[in-house]
């Protein structure tokens, strides 16, 4: 009995010590900048807002990074874009004159709350809203089951902004448990180990400044738009075909359990609030790869994509909002090779739509 008790005691103590030590290391290394303990993201944000192109920056909390960019802005932005990864390749030169200050704040899997939070960050930090806002409206922003909750990194800006146009009780500021769970997350621990290895290998540098996009790395231009590494940027056509098909297999990204449009009231109130502040709004509907789109349209449950588009067109017409693009790639005669997978258009897609 005593032996078993001793064995249990020493095992528990060992577990506690190991877990605490790893958690402290994860907190201190903080490769994604989740706990605000890293200054490499601050430096990257400063480089961008100083007008330098950066490359090599991977695996960071994109929302936190956008917050840092907004905090470090050196100029007043006239126009911004907010959307998901499907809007990230929208570049200033596609549709704006050179003298206009523009920044693309798109973040992966953006939801309606992200739009509100990023606009809120402008208002809260700088006291203004850029005069033109391009909203990359993906169909899932009206899906309450989209599973997108990453916007919570920007909860304080969301709460600030929503109080300006909604009488509804704001969402109580909850402790972001997802963030704290990273302290005991295997992938985050591995990511931190890799981060330390990269730091050692690159003499303490986790990103670098570049003056050309002709490099095989992930790049962020000074307008916030991105370029993928070569493997994705110059993907072979058979790989596009494969990716476009496999996108429709299993659960389709953020489009499951999507049988009716939700969040409409919040969306409309937000847009009306922006319009009441004389903000010009453009809805950008990024198209799907034609292969993907055609497969999705064969399944009735994904017809909601077209219902979302129809709603956006009606709402835009009624409220004098410019609308660009369509989820349906055939409207622009896009080919599957114009895309890098099932849902991300190459440069030519945004260019053709905005020109």
């Amino acid at each position, binding site marked *: *009995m005593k032996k*078993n008790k001793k064995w249990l005691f020493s095992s528990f103590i060992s*577990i506690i010590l190991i*877990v605490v030590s790893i958690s402290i290391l994860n907190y201190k290394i903080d490769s994604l900048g989740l706990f605000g303990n890293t200054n490499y993201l601050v430096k990257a944000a400063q480089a961008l807002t100083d007008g330098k192109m950066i490359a090599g920056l991977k695996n960071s909390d994109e929302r936190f990074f956008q917050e840092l960019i907004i905090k470090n802005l050196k100029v007043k932005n006239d126009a911004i874009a907010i959307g998901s990864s499907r809007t990230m390749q929208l570049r200033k030169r596609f549709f704006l004159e050179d003298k206009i200050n523009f920044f693309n704040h798109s973040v992966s899997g953006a939801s309606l709350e992200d739009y509100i939070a990023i606009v809120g960050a402008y208002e809260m930090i700088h006291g203004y809203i850029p005069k033109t806002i391009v909203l990359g409206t993906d169909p899932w922003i009206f899906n309450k089951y989209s599973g997108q909750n990453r916007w919570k990194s920007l909860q304080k800006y969301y709460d600030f902004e929503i109080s300006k146009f909604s009488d509804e009780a704001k969402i109580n500021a909850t402790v972001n448990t997802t963030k704290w769970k990273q302290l*005991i997350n295997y992938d985050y621990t591995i990511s931190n180990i890799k981060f330390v290895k990269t730091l050692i290998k690159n003499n303490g540098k986790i990103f670098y400044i570049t003056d050309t996009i002709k490099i095989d790395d992930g790049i962020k231009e000074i307008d916030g738009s991105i370029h993928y590494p070569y493997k994705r940027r110059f993907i072979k056509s058979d790989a596009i075909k494969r990716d476009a098909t*496999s996108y429709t*297999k299993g659960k389709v990204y953020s489009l499951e359990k999507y049988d009716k449009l939700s969040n409409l009231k919040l969306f409309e109130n937000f847009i009306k609030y922006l319009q009441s502040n004389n903000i010009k709004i453009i809805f950008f509907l990024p198209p799907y790869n034609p292969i993907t789109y055609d497969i999705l349209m064969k399944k009735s449950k994904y017809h909601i994509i077209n219902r979302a588009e129809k709603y956006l067109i009606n709402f835009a017409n009624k409220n004098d909002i410019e609308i660009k693009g369509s989820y349906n790639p055939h409207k622009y005669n896009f080919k599957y090779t114009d895309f890098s997978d099932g849902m991300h258009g190459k440069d030519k897609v945004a260019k053709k739509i905005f020109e």
Partner: protein
Amino acid sequence: MLFNSYEFIFAFLPITFFIYFYLNNKRLTTASKGFLVFSSLFFYSWWNILYLPIILSSMLFNFIIGNSLNKNSKLNKRSILIFGIFLNIALLGYFKYSDFFIQNVNLLTSSHIPTLDLALPLAISFFTFQQISYLVDSYRGETKEYDFLNYALFVTFFPQLIAGPIVHHKEMMPQFASKWNLVKNYKNIALGLFIFSIGLFKKVVIADTFALWATAGFDTATTLNLFEAWATSLSYTFQLYFDFSGYTDMAIGAALLFNIKLPINFNSPYKATNIQDFWRRWHITLSRFLKDYIYIPLGGNRKGEFRTYTNLMATFIIGGLWHGAGWTFVFWGFLHGVALVIHRAWSKLGFKLNTILAWFITFNFINISWVFFRAKEWDDAIKVLSSMFSLDNVVLPGLLENKLIILKNYGIEFGGFTTNIQGGISIIFWLFFGFILILFFRNSMNKLQEFKPTTLNGFLFVSMFIISFYKLSGYSEFLYFRF
């Protein structure tokens, strides 16, 4: 609530454990049992409280029927038993097989009867079978009269409630009634936690890793090359074993904390050298149920060879259907029935195979038949199987291109040999690791018997627990929850 969740490991399990033994310590044994039933129902309702009335009414109904069987005359007993089994099967049939039935009627008659789209109440297949066995045993006079609280604990005891092992009342009731089991036992706690951590490791580290490739191969890939097809089927073969035996280890470990010994459910099944041997090692408590309550009542092997074969086929087709309402499951059961018939006929003729060859045939049969078990549609099964046996689409790793370039003349390609299942070279190591584990390691039940509180076991426990703990953050359900 999943065994592999923070809520279970750090809240539910310790709270239930401490309150249960606190109440026992205060000699409030009825309250402690009541608390354990309440906790188990809470555990069950965590998924969906709407299922709670179903399990409660099923439990009450079977308790009443069981008691009636203990009291009535032989003639009445038979009618009561038939009535009891009929209602149990009807409940299971309604929730599990209605849509399957409607779909087949629609197909045969070209009608358009709408499906009911019923959600399958969690664990219904398990608690229904468990209670049918209770009724049959009551009919046979093999049960004693127990109070409702003990019966409720027998049905709902949370470690075995969701996915077994399917327990007999006679192996559980005396344990719940024993006063020796009301006291904390540090040996059982150490043993229970050790086995629990093995199960957790099997599930979140091994099974969930294989799950990535199995899911990609079966559900996502449109085409597979030869290696990908074999990697897909083997990944599922390993995933299923480590997932389900991992769950069982956790169940056995959790039960041991309460001094309850659950029956063994797996005994290195992939070491089997014939199909009969496999069924003596795989999901042992289900095999026991099928044998005791279907095969033997049908006549077993007592009515001649032909009837024995028919009984085997019937038992395994029912076993297939128990796993899921689909023709692929029925076909999987049929294949195993056929294999058992062939094995039996073969054995009767007195032939013997070399052990390694026997293992090879048995393992490959099991691996191939799992393809039907896993596939959501016939097309998925055909996709995997046709690629497993086709030499038209052979792709080898790009790094071998220079050494084996001559093979290009025979249509063999080099490059992304695991692209369609989103894998890499690590698949080869994992599959190799999987084979080593199933063939050369002692299983967790052997570990259970040999356990001593040594430094090595302490190191194993801490390492497995820590690694699993860090892998826990994603949601990953056990495969057998859907059956």
